[in-house]
């Protein structure tokens, strides 16, 4: 049990001053972080460095300074060992058009080190798993966009990696295909056999699939948060709307209960309740102060808020 917990807490990815340059341009600026989650989201606007980070971890780009460790393996010293742990689903189309789906996945599994017969068996299984069992003998060039995405996922998991890199996994998918992809990712995550890194600029994808989020901005870490903890903390976050102007006495009174308050837009009031305080007490004070509460919502500080704050923060910190 203790061993399992220790394994759970051991860093999946340790970024140790990782810097990547293309010529004179610094793309990743000395990233430092220790990511331990089962499913980690990489968020950031286009050009923030998400794909470059994944490519650097895969050894496609040589770091100009610093390094990173994946499940304890250094990407500079043991690139081959690192890649043997990873399954990679790239952002762009990646296939050999004339090859049948199952043959392609089998080829990739064999290159990852699986013997011929195991590679064939797992290629078939992976195709059924991603829902392409019926079309596995068709040439990949004839697949629809959604099928190509699923085939990319199949090749990424066929060899049984310990860590899965998914770069924009829902790129270009229609809503049903997107839903199916998200369900697959959640299923893989929930099985707990491997760790996931989901890079996306779609907040919803990350919110639905990840428990930790690393937000990048201009090649630097803008924020790093544990979504589960954020969600827990936000359970006591209320947004209140009252009739007319806010009564100063009312605000003072609820502060007196130990609440933190902050004025919001359009006369709203943001309130953080202290532990143990019931919402009912706010209504009682409002009645005593002759304030009419028109709306009271448990406001979730959504990933969108976290993301926007990270983007706005001048110094890159929340």
């Amino acid at each position, binding site marked *: 049990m203790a061993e399992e917990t220790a394994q759970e807490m051991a860093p999946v990815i340790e970024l140790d001053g990782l810097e990547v340059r293309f*010529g004179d341009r610094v793309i990743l600026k000395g990233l430092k972080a220790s990511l331990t989650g089962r499913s980690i989201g990489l968020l950031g606007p286009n050009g923030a460095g998400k794909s470059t980070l994944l*490519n650097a971890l895969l050894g496609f780009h040589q770091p100009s300074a610093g390094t990173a460790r994946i499940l304890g393996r250094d990407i500079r010293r043991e690139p081959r060992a690192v*890649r043997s742990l990873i399954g990679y689903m790239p952002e762009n189309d990646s296939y050999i058009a004339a090859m049948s789906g199952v*043959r392609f996945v089998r080829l990739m599994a064999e290159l990852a080190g699986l*013997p011929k017969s195991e590679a064939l068996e797992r290629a*078939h*299984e992976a195709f059924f798993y991603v829902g392409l069992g019926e079309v596995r003998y068709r040439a990949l060039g004839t697949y629809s966009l959604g099928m190509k995405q699923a085939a990319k996922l199949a090749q990424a998991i066929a060899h049984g990696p310990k860590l899965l890199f998914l770069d924009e996994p829902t790129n270009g998918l229609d809503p049903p295909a997107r839903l199916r992809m998200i369900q697959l990712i959640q299923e*893989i995550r929930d099985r707990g056999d491997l760790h996931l890194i989901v890079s996306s600029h779609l907040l919803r994808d990350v919110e639905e699939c990840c428990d930790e989020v690393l937000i990048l901005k201009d090649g630097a870490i803008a924020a790093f948060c544990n979504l589960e903890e954020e969600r827990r903390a936000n359970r006591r976050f209320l947004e209140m709307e009252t009739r007319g102007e806010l009564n100063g006495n009312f605000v003072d009174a609820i502060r007196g209960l130990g609440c933190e308050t902050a004025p919001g837009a359009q006369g709203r009031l943001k309130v953080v309740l202290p532990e143990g305080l019931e919402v009912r007490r706010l209504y009682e004070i409002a009645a005593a102060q002759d304030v009419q509460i028109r709306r009271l919502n448990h406001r979730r500080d959504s990933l969108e808020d976290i993301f926007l704050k990270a983007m706005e923060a001048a110094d890159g910190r929340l």
Partner: protein
Amino acid sequence: MAVYKKTYRPYEGALTAHWARLLVIPRYAFEDLHRRKFLSVFFFATFLYPLICAIIIYVQHNASALSLIGAQGAQHLISINVVFFLSLLGWQSMMALFLAAFVGPSQVSPDLANNALSLYLARPFSRTEYVLSKMSVLVILLSVMTWVPGLLLFGLESYLEGWSWAVDHARIASGLFFGAWVWILLLALLALALSAWVKWRAAAGALMFGLFFVLSAFGAVINGVERTNWGHLFNISYLVGSVWVWLFEGGHPTTNGAVFFRAPRGETLPLWTSWVGLAVLALICLYMLARKIRGAEVVR
């Protein structure tokens, strides 16, 4: 085989050795080539010339076979010597050029056309291993066409003529082996480099021929205008031919090359310039490959 399973499960089984993974790409490539009937027919047709050579060698040493067809004394018409083996190498190497032009372009371009390369390199498989694997497809095919039949014929002649002949003509055997390798490596590098840069298969194949003819024509123009012989440095068949002559005969050549790979008499350049010319061409191909064979495109 449990193809009905619809769950993901980690792989805990044994992994193959790293060197064994180098053979995966050639195996898939040969399966693909086998499906192309024209290539299979062409490949087997290229053994016609070595077969004729084998018959000639056999007949040379079998007077009764000659008398059977009423051609007594015909063995004096063809000598089994340097020219015989150089001609074999020259002819087979030209066939190798055709085969490389057909097979080479389909090696790298399909991987680059839809970015499959990143998937190869995201595995414990390096860029060098990728290039070596792809090269090995051509190296195996072209070896079977060139030095393998050459050495078999050399062995046949040695067997029939006596081992003292083999010892006296050992340089022919080494010339066949190393001469073929010079050509094979050059062709393989050129085919892969063009395949990496020209995505349209037919265009890449045509470009391979074009390089030989256009460059030699360019060299001839330089020779004509400048009244020099240095234009031959652009003529790949000249460079290869002069290297072959040295490999077969050393410093005292009696021939000026092989069929398709001949240096005009009196227009020879120092041997080292041929080596340098070939090395430069190989380096250019390697540079072209290094630029294209990458896991991710770098946009500076």
